[in-house]
């Protein structure tokens, strides 16, 4: 390939349209999309699911499958049009000039080939490199992505690596031929936040080192802020705003971008004084897009007869290659403060309703019972859990995978019984009562909202039927008619139209399904609700609405909400108290303010630093944890966090390796499990600082 003029764009997409063809109709997935990526530049592609951002990436790779087709526009890579290129030429480009990194690292690696073979293949194809040279190169690159013991890794199979390591291998594979353009499709979505932080750092560093341009696709505005120079916001198949990161974040010129920022919990938002503003309505289905502006029906500035009259083109906005697909961007007062949002009084907290005391849950795994043999391993899913929750309070339980939060929920619900310890609910010991033995009252007063909206409802039963079933079980209502009326009231409560009672779950969107899940949980007048990541699978604009709904019902019913989440932004926004868990231990517990400001537990500190925040005013101290979360089957001795702790050297005598730290009370209601001496704790600096406005 000839030397490329570094001043010209690497990738130029002009008026690209992509459609998928089904038996019934043509579904346009991307329409009139344009963007330019300069050498060494990182371009972010942001939008909610279904907005077409991944389709753009696959379009660039010309890998749209049987049904997808580019119906218009051009994609020029280093001046050559990819849309008309032959398969053979494309093949030479793929992997060597343009490489891609995918969302699910496990699925992207061939399970039956060693890592080395998969890596070495790339230069062997494109540069006709000898096998030995290719393996040597692979070894260097593996070291480059900071994986320990490269030789062992090269001989390993994908399943022998952890998720974070696998993603590093996928990155290494993409870098094998030093591509000019790297496409990253949600590269960290499947990973835990602390692992994500490491990957993001790596991508940034390698991008600079090799001078690679990047197309970074993500739904997370915070991540885009950390990685990218420029971004392009997509909505329903169209780019609605594009520009450099600072301008789009601080001086957005499209109502959708603005609404998006108002709906995510940034530092400073508060559920009582500064609540989030949800975007009304739903994302339009690809074949039900409105005429004119796609965002029109949900837009605050919508003007009938103008916004829905004609196709709207991208318009130039003053600034650094800034553009907006809005007819009215010049007329709108972008700095106007939010219209008076209703502020609500903080709900007073009542009596203690739930108390856990030194709760332990151990599992035995690995022994075949039928023929014996094999040592039984004990998994300590929960280790001496103690806390209490009051009426009307929101207690957040924060932690990454394997921290034991789901087990805790199971024990509380009675799906499992505790190994030892106590659970007292309304002055009743329930730790040893499995759910079959609990009274209907007890069962109906603790209910759960589940994480995955696509899984939480039975796909073959109508929505109404599922709610009515809960009413029947909880003994609500005396006749079918009464229960049906009550079901309709519950639909009102979660703000769903009453017709939804007769719909099947597949006809509902994710957010609507989640609302049904909430209605079902409150069918028996639940007093304690365990919400297991209730919004993490939803799009940001829907998250705010569902969170709001939960808060509103909580205020009305004075429900105690146990909010399980890994997302610290939302936790800070809505919870009164926070409990941080790591490998089955409660490492920190306190009010939201206590937990979010120093002194921290070292794990809390790292967690806070790892969460991307979509706010240009925020500066964060960068703390990247080494390695992965240890397996709960095989936890480290001593303090569970000692393998990744950056403060470990401050504790004298190797105490961390030997002993599990005791619980220490730092202030009223604030406790941590750490060996660090007081003077070190007091020295800690805040992780997040917000620049004064």
């Amino acid at each position, binding site marked *: 390939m000839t030397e490329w003029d570094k001043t010209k764009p690497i990738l130029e997409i002009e008026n690209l349209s992509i459609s998928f063809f089904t038996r019934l109709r043509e579904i346009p997935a991307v329409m009139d999309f344009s963007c330019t990526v300069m050498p060494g530049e990182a371009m972010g592609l942001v939008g909610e699911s279904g907005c077409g951002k991944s389709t753009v990436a696959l379009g660039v790779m010309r890998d749209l499958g049987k049904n997808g087709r580019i119906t218009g526009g051009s994609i020029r890579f280093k001046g050559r049009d990819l849309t008309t290129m032959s398969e053979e030429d494309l093949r030479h480009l*793929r992997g060597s000039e343009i490489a891609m990194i*995918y969302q699910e690292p496990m*699925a*992207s690696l*061939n*399970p*039956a*080939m060693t890592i080395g073979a998969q890596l070495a293949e790339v230069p062997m194809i494109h540069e006709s490199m000898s096998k030995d040279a290719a393996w040597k190169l692979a070894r260097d690159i593996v070291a480059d992505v900071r994986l320990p013991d490269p030789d062992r890794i090269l001989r390993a199979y994908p399943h022998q690596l952890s998720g974070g390591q696998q993603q590093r291998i996928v990155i290494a594979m993409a870098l094998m031929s030093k591509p000019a353009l790297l496409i990253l499709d949600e590269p960290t979505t499947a990973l835990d936040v602390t692992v994500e932080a490491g990957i993001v750092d790596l991508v940034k560093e390698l991008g600079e080192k090799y001078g690679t341009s990047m197309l970074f696709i993500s739904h997370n505005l915070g991540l885009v802020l950390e990685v990218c120079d420029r971004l392009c916001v997509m909505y329903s198949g169209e780019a609605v705003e594009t520009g450099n990161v600072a301008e789009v974040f601080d001086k957005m010129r499209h109502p959708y971008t603005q609404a998006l920022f108002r709906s995510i919990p940034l530092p400073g938002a508060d559920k009582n004084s500064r609540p989030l503003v949800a975007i009304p309505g739903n994302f339009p289905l690809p074949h039900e897009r409105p005429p004119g502006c796609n965002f029109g029906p949900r837009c605050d500035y919508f003007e009938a007869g103008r916004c829905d009259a004609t196709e709207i083109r991208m318009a130039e906005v003053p600034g650094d290659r800034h553009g907006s697909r809005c007819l009215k961007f010049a007329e709108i007062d972008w700095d106007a403060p939010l219209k008076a949002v209703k502020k609500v009084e903080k709900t007073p907290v009542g009596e203690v309703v739930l108390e856990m005391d030194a709760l332990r849950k151990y599992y035995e795994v690995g022994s075949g019972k039928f023929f014996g043999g094999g040592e039984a391993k004990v998994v300590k899913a929960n280790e001496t859990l103690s806390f209490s929750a009051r009426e009307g309070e929101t207690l957040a339980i924060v932690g990454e995978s394997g921290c034991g939060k789901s087990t805790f929920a199971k024990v509380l619900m009675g799906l499992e019984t505790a190994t030892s310890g106590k659970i007292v609910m309304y002055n009743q010991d329930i730790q040893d009562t499995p759910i079959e033995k609990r009274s209907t009252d007890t069962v109906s007063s603790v209910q759960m909202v589940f994480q995955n909206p696509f899984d939480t409802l039975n796909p073959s039963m109508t929505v109404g039927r599922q709610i009515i079933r809960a009413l029947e079980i909880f003994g609500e209502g005396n006749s079918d008619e009464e229960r049906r009326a009550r079901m309709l009231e519950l639909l009102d409560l979660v703000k769903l139209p009453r017709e939804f009672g007769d719909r099947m779950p597949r006809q509902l969107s994710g957010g609507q399904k989640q609302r049904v899940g909430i209605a079902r949980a409150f069918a028996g007048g639940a007093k304690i609700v365990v919400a297991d990541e209730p919004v993490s699978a939803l799009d940001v604009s829907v998250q705010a609405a569902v969170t709001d709904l939960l808060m509103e019902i909580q205020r009305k019913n004075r429900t105690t909400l146990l909010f399980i989440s890994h997302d610290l932004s939302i936790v800070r926004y809505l919870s009164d108290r926070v409990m941080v868990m790591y490998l089955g231990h409660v490492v920190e517990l306190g009010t939201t303010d206590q937990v979010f400001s120093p002194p921290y537990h070292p794990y809390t500190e790292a967690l806070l630093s790892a969460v991307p925040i979509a706010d240009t005013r925020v500066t964060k101290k960068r703390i990247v944890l080494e390695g992965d979360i240890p397996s709960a089957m095989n936890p480290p001795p001593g303090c569970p966090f000692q393998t990744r702790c950056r403060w470990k050297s401050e504790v004298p005598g190797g105490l961390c390796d030997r002993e599990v730290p005791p619980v220490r009370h730092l202030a009223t209601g604030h406790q941590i499990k750490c060996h660090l001496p007081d003077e070190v704790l007091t020295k800690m600096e805040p992780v997040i600082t917000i620049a004064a406005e």
Partner: protein
Amino acid sequence: MLMFLSRRLGIMALTALCLTFVVFFLTNLEPNLEKLARSEGSVRMSDDQVTSWLEANGHARPLIMRYGEWLGVLPGWTRDVDGSVTGRCIRGGLTAETAPTRCGVLQGNWGQSSVFKRPVGEIMGRSLAATGWLMLWVMIVMVPSALLLGVLAGMREGTRTDRALSTVAIATTATPEYVSGVILIVVFASATAGISPVLAEWGWISGRTLFQGTATSAMDKITFWNFGLPVLTIALYGMGYIARMTRASMTEVMTAQYIRTARLKGVKFRDVVIRHALRNALIAPFTVIMLQFPWLLNGVVIVETLFNYKGFGWTLVQGAGNNDIDLLLSCSVVAVIVVLVTQLISDIGYAFLNPRIRIS
């Protein structure tokens, strides 16, 4: 691995015990024994005579005892009538003194066939050898063609090649051996129908039929003309099934993310299929091929009956049709062992092909 093997062998032994006991129970039911008595003694025996015959031959004792004797863990029965001692193990020139106490399967004594009037061990040996050849050729024909068919069809899902090959595969699975065998005989080995009369008229074949309609002569010497049809009959039925499994597995693998990764690395389509897809796609069919054995046994029984080939299946039919208890029992032992061993091989092979299982 050792753990796994010993556990598997344990389960196998238990299964074999249970199964042989069930067969023993079913073959030694009262009516069956009566029939045996009448066929061994005389057809016109009275009921009393039957009872005494059964007693004299050790059949009138508890089932579990007889099973133990057959197995060889209990001592064989002896009976002293007026000084002449008879017993299970006293036969073939042995006297009460020289005969061993136990003589069951574990001692290598499989009993005497009542149909063929010869030791079962000998009959089984001969018929298993005959069936071995049949199975070998079936495997040689069936497995490669099925895999090829499946891979070609599954490589590019939804294309015309795929549709055509899939339909062929479905058609062959829909044709049981007794149907395809009949059709093949009519087409290739009938003197009045099919292509043979035409070929004979043109003088292309010397005999009256192209293929031979029976495989009896293959017992002595296997030729293409006497063995082709039986092999094809069994292979066709199994082939469709394996091909469909391979196709399903191949299409699933071809839509997997790692295949996209390979494609977007710039790997040629041919190499994507051969290097990346094939091994993953063959894991599932491999187990299917192995688990196919019990099914092939069915085919063997039908085909050997249809083509009059005196192998294991033919022997089984003779034994079952004539209530030859010892013969039937050893047939079932063999069948059960074949099935269990193939299951074991399938598990081990699966672990070998799938690195995910091998390591753990």
